[in-house]
């Protein structure tokens, strides 16, 4: 499935996943089952409806699922380094340094009682080994990179005092500060206003390119993913149903249904197409 680009620098994929299965509780239906894909220094998108296991996949890679989750995989390597066998302490050193996770809603994913500056500086202290004031400098520099015009003022603010778009930039600044090899963005814009969505995405894209990192973009908005990513992984009920490079390639009825369900002002229809789940379940079960 993974198509390897032949490029001397990116010979090895940043992330290589093979046969990833996640169960919550023993005997439960797996939330993610037998998922395999590679991410190089490129942008890969995962789409699928709610509950299809997108976030679970992302968190399983970060090893951030609750202890109740049973994760197994034939291979889960970051830059050739197996993640599953790492201790919690080793993972701590990796997270934020080599892999970063950007979450959906900055209102909830920033600590409400710590100032923005402190939260970004914490990442700098953890991964760049900086002292207090140097870390704050690094944070300031990073805020400038995410194009926040008045970093000193913003650093003193608390999360509730900034807008959603700004919050997501802060989140990006915090996570990308240590130039991770892989960035997992779990619905990074779906809590944001339409008008700022694009800016945030473009910014994320720009930084990832600048760092030459891999990007795993998780979203349910198939059009947006198609516009941004080089490859699209479509998930349904915990499985990968197909991997595409453009929407036109879509073969699987689920993917096609998904695309058809989107209202498109350019091609108005009286009724939108609806997924036939019964049939779909029958097909995927085979």
């Amino acid at each position: 499935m993974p198509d390897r680009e032949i490029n001397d620098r990116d010979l090895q994929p940043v992330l290589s996943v093979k046969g990833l299965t996640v169960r919550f509780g023993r005997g439960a239906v797996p939330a993610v089952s037998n998922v395999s894909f590679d991410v190089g220094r490129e942008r890969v998108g995962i789409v699928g409806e709610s509950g299809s296991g997108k976030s679970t996949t992302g968190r399983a890679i970060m090893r951030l699922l609750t202890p109740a989750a049973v994760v197994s995989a034939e291979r889960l390597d970051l830059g050739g380094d197996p993640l599953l066998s790492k201790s919690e302490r080793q993972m701590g050193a990796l997270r934020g340094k080599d892999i970063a996770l950007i979450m959906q809603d900055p209102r909830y994913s920033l600590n409400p009682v710590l100032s923005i500056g402190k939260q970004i500086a914490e990442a700098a202290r953890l991964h760049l080994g900086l002292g207090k004031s140097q870390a704050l400098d690094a944070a300031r520099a990073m805020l400038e990179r995410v194009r926040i015009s008045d970093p000193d003022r913003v650093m003193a603010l608390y999360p509730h005092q900034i807008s959603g778009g700004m919050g997501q930039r802060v989140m990006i600044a915090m996570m990308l500060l240590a130039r991770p090899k892989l960035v997992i963005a779990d619905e990074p814009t779906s809590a944001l206003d339409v008008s700022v969505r694009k800016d945030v995405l473009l910014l994320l894209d720009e930084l990832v390119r600048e760092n030459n990192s891999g990007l795993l973009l998780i979203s349910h908005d198939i059009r947006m993913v198609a516009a941004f990513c080089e490859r699209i992984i479509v998930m349904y009920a915990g499985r990968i149903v197909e991997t595409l490079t453009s929407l036109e390639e879509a073969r699987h009825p689920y993917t096609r249904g998904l695309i058809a369900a989107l209202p498109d002002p350019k091609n108005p229809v009286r009724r939108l197409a609806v997924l036939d789940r019964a049939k779909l379940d029958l097909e995927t079960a085979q």
Partner: protein
Amino acid sequence: MKELSVAEFGRRLAHLLVSLFILLCVTFVIGRVLPTDPVGAIVGELADPAAYAAMRARLGLDLPIYQQFFLYLNGLAHGDFGTAVLTGNPVSSDLAQAFPATFELATLAVIISTFVGVPLGLVAALFRDSFIDKIARVVALVGHSIPVFWFGIVGLVIFYAGLNWVGGPGRIDVFYEGLVEPRTGLLLIDSLLQGETEIFWNALGHIILPAIILAYAAMAYITRMTRSFTLEQLSQDYVIAARAKGVSPFGTIWHHVLPNIAVQLITILAISYGGLLEGAVVTEIVFSWPGIGQYMTNALMIGDMNAIVAGTIIVGFIFMLLNFLADVAYAVFDPRMREAAR
């Protein structure tokens, strides 16, 4: 935000005073309708009715209740809480003696229960449903489920009579009585201030057992609440974000969760503290501790109204003050509230 807080501060202070006044009225009325009879207690069982009536008049109990109330208010306005029947002293000076004793005990107890209960709650939450969690819960619950007087006596049997690790009942060994001059009324502090280390150690030996027993009883609540606050926070996205940033589990608890639950913790600590301050009556009896709980119970037994009203006011005031401070802490520690404090 400063100037806004001042207005808010004033408003809440006014509320506090109104509440206190109502508390005063209610206590006063309750006190006067009680059937307990301070006159009988003073003049003695065998006194004849004339002497009885004379004493009644002297205490002002023959006046209609509203007049008694105005007289009392008048006294209050001059800082006079009246005279305690029980001791013949001004109530204020009695309270000045009894309150520090309770204050010392309650403060030590709340410190102990905080320093044990909060970490226990954090650990229990962090290792939720593990063996540690279960142990922590049961240990805390047992403290919550056994009568204090029972614990008190068992504690004395073991640690005082048996092992001789701690001092016995009372605040201090009797022969040290009166050697330190009460400045703050807190023996531990007074003795240190006056360089009487021997007395300090003696007083510490006396206070430690009742303090631990009270602390154990209070700990259940603190542990349980800490645990549930922490669990609530641990399921928040920002905790996952912090972990994704590479913060260690301990660092997450310390740098991220704790500041978030600090305000809630302060509130429940204030509640526990208030509960302890309002007089651990039973503990004070078991340990012959001359605190406000015992003072008020004895006052109640003989219907000593001045003492009861004043005691209730003080305790109510402390309680309200603690609540007030907890609210202020909200405004100070929680940036969201700082903004919202109108």
